[in-house]
């Protein structure tokens, strides 16, 4: 049995201690926002926060979470689903295409902005280079991070060609 705090609530699961957090959260706890992409910590789709730090949940066993706090994408929004500044920027900049990698992208970006409220391009490169986007939304992610940190203005909706 493994016991940890998930998105603010204590949970106990019957799981092989070696099972990665990713699969415990998806299959045993029914939270599918965290995604499987590669299984070897190369793509970042599985990023969650472990005691606030971004980790790749596909390569972190649930035994390492024992007694600690895990935050998934489902736990990032505020009360009543209020969007964070990052999530709002993701909408204003129309970031997602297929959307599959975006939970991981948002988890990495959230940790970045919490630790560094006004990241430079190099800071963004360093924090986000572990998250692959196959649809190629990188330039929009960068812009959205800068919008969320107040460094540039958001895009206006409904522009004409």
């Amino acid at each position, binding site marked *: 049995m493994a016991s940890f705090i998930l998105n603010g609530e204590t949970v106990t699961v019957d799981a092989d*201690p*070696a099972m990665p957090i990713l699969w415990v959260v998806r299959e045993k706890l029914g939270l599918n926002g965290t995604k499987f992409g590669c299984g*070897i*910590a*190369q793509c970042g789709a599985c990023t969650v926060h472990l005691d606030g730090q971004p*980790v*790749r949940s596909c*390569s972190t066993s649930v*035994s390492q979470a024992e007694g600690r706090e895990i935050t998934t994408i489902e736990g990032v929004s505020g009360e009543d689903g209020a969007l964070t500044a990052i999530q709002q920027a993701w909408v204003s900049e129309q970031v997602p295409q297929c959307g599959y990698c975006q939970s991981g992208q948002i988890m990495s970006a959230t940790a970045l902005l919490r630790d560094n409220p006004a990241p430079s391009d190099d800071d963004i490169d360093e924090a986000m280079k572990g998250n692959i986007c196959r649809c190629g939304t990188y330039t929009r992610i960068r812009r959205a991070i800068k919008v969320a940190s107040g460094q540039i203005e958001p895009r206006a909706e409904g522009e004409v060609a």
Partner: protein
Amino acid sequence: MLNRAIIAVSLATIMLSACGSSEPPQVVEQIVVREPGEPEVAIAAPLTDIALGEEAFQRCTACHTVEAGAPSSAGPNLHAIVGRTAGSLEGFPYTEALAEEDFAWDAASLDAYLADPDGFVPGSDMLIGTVTDDEERAAIVGYLVSLSE
């Protein structure tokens, strides 16, 4: 972006594409170990320490191999790791931190590294491979040591 079969058509004839006439699926061999909901089958013979170590090492195989001559993947090939200078496997893109080290791996250093990679070699990149469980870690180290004997 269609399969070729759909592209080939002529005005003069309607192509009645053959659909659904596949052979019945063949199951060559089916092993039923247990049904969902049933308890796990007990392992027949107790595993030796080395076998336990090999089991424990399974979680490392996502990134590491111990097979002589096999190419490294996300992590360096660990064949004959015991006795090898840290960060020295030719061709592997180590972090600067590990590449600069010049000690040779042994049971003690492997144990310390696996317990806390970033603490033992600050700046190294293997946080995901941390093994906090003492028994599990000892088993892995024992297994790696056994491979070099």
